[in-house]
């Protein structure tokens, strides 16, 4: 194992250890709450990335899976009285069933038509839920009396790790290679025996399952909202934005994007009142304009510059005469 790889593993372990003890170290509901939101978005953006980033299918209806997970879990947990773990799993399963139902017809569409189609489906579901469930769902006072953020934090931490871990294993497998082949050139992939439809459906199912679980965790976390709220397009577009800010088609991209998005937005909101949206919007445009590959690309660029400088320094140290001679020539 190379030294570089060991450093990465050590950093990951240290990061995980820090995240595990965060509620013990930090006695602030404000910070725990912010960490919960960041973890929620890491899970949601990473699940979007499986289909959008690795399989190349821009899904604008991701909120439908998130919303279905939330609705199912909240109903089963609060109204029917199922245990939370079962309600959460049911949320993920319902999202997958919906994904499989809509996936078959939706994948007959390609490119922008697929994107618009998924957006339309999600909006239909959004309006239907709004009409069917118009009442606010609030946690009763007896639940609030024992409400604690720490269990919610650990649920989201587990979920984020699970989503990122699954994405990592998936994209490093044969199936993941197939998904990326479909992303790069669908016809070429088909000609090599890679079933585009099967791979897209698999990616959609994985993406929907984790979005559904995240929605379920949201139902466990949130104190009061309209059942329609998690179906809102903002959940899709925020997740997409995070994946793009961080870098789509990478494991680390949605994580960086989600943390940047949540922390930057919160800091701006706490300091700039109404202006914060304008400033954040400008920041987003700048990232897209100058770093089309996301913040991951920025890191790549920095590494390339550092490597070039290091090489130049090595060359100067190795042959100082040549280097000074070169300078003389330039000076002349």
């Amino acid at each position: 194992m190379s030294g570089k790889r060991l450093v990465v593993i050590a950093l990951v372990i240290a990061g995980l250890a820090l995240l595990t003890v965060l509620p013990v170290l930090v006695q602030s509901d404000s910070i725990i709450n912010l960490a919960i939101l960041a973890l929620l978005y890491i899970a949601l953006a990473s699940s979007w990335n499986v289909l959008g980033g690795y399989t190349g299918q821009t899904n604008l209806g991701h909120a439908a899976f998130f919303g279905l997970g939330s609705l199912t879990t909240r109903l089963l947990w609060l109204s029917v009285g199922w245990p939370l773990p079962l309600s959460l799993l049911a949320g993920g399963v319902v999202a997958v069933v919906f994904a499989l139902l809509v996936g078959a017809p939706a994948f007959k569409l390609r490119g922008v038509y697929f994107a618009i189609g998924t957006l339309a489906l999600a909006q239909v579901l959004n309006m239907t839920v709004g009409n069917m469930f118009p009442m606010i769902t609030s946690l009763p006072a007896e639940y609030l009396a024992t409400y604690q953020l720490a269990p919610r934090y650990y649920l989201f931490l587990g979920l984020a790790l699970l989503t990122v871990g699954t994405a990592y294993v998936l994209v490093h497998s044969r199936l993941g290679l197939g998904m990326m082949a479909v992303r790069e050139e669908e016809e070429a992939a088909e000609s090599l025996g890679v079933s585009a439809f099967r791979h897209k459906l698999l990616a959609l199912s994985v993406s929907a399952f984790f979005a559904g679980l995240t929605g379920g965790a949201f139902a466990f976390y949130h104190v009061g909202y309209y059942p329609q709220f998690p179906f809102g397009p903002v959940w899709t577009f925020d997740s997409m934005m995070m994946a793009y800010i961080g870098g789509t088609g990478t494991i680390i991209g949605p994580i960086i994007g989600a943390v940047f998005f949540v922390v930057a937005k919160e800091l701006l909101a706490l300091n700039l009142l109404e202006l914060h949206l304008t400033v954040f919007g400008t920041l987003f445009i700048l990232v897209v304009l100058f770093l089309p590959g996301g913040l991951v690309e920025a890191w790549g660029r920095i590494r390339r510059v550092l490597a070039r400088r290091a090489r130049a320094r090595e060359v100067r140290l190795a042959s100082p005469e040549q280097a000074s001679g070169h300078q003389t020539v330039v000076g002349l």
Partner: protein
Amino acid sequence: MRARISIGIVIAIVLSMLAAQCPPPATPTEIPPTKAVEPTKAPEVKPTEVPKATEVPKPPAPEAIDIGASIPLTGKYGALGAMVKPGYEFAVTHINAAGGVYVKAFDKKIPLRLTIYDDESDPTKAVSKLETLYSDKKVVAYLGGAGSDMHAATAAIAEKNKVPYLGIAFALYQIHQKGYKYLFSPFPKSPAQARDVYEILNAEIPEGQRPKKVAIFQEKTDWGIELGGLWKENAPKYGYEVVVYEEYAPRSADFSDIILKAKAAGAEALFAVPSPPDGLAIQKQMAELGWTPKFTLMIRAPENVSWGETLGKTGDYVTIFPGWHNAEKFPGVDKLNAAYQAEFGRPADLLTGPAYACVQILADAITRAGTLDRDAIRDAIAATNMTTVVGPVTFNADGTGKVLNPLIQWQNGKLELVWPKDQASAKLLYPAPPFDKR
């Protein structure tokens, strides 16, 4: 590989769920909320434990009393939030100009320090902002934003953190039926709106001329269902008959079907709670289809100034229960209007008065509590009995306010206060003339 993925997924799911079920090793909510204001415990010491109460040295007073609000300044409730925010700000300015709030525990007046955050009309962000106000700013009380769903989320956080919460700009009664102890709202609720409309009609209009046949257009939202049901339930008690009760989905573009049903049934009054785009569409389509109710009570949509600008004479004669009007004659209204006029070039907006009253109630409660202890302030708010810019205020056990529910009416492109009579700026115009004869 598939087997490995499956095993990994199952293990991770089980572990994360177990972690979620386990009690945390230490939680921020275990910190007593009163810890930040510990000095206030001094006056509670029994006189027998010290020679004389007057000899107890007063603890050092804090620099300011921190209060906080999460308001939707952007997003779908942005227009409402823009009316609420200046109400809080003007009240704090006026109270601080008089030296602040007297707190007996420190034997001095302490200024209020208000922190406002924008929650973008998003209940998740509102929750986050309230946690920040609680953890970082150590606020002794929350002031609410606007919109039922926003209040449902933020009032629950207030309950969790045991911080008194004063909120307006929502009439939904069911939020008060959750058993929350820290939620107070000096704002008219659905039961009052469902009762008062009939009482005003019976008081203002002679028996033979009353609009006895009522049409209710019920929006398929929690408030629409709640208020629509109460209007229907109350109608026979006051001698009215609901001839049309039609539901519609919010943001419907076409209301002609339900308007024609009301017209065919000979309905003389219309009650509805549409959002602004729906309200404008209903009013325009009623004019186009030639159905003019003699009396229209349309809460919410006509509260925006754009109603008059967009509809002109078509928008006249419509009445609203907005919670307040700047023509009310209670102490402090003139001062608020003058301050508002100086900054915005018009008298205070409809939600600004109730927002101002929230701070008045809070300041009064802090003084009566004599301490900055959140529970003591909560109890003092519950015992409120004072006159504010919205009139006399007391609270029911469920946190709803016993407050005036004024009726206003669009007359010649202006909002006039028409009820109660002792506060009125104009008479109720009834019946409304047909749209084509205005």
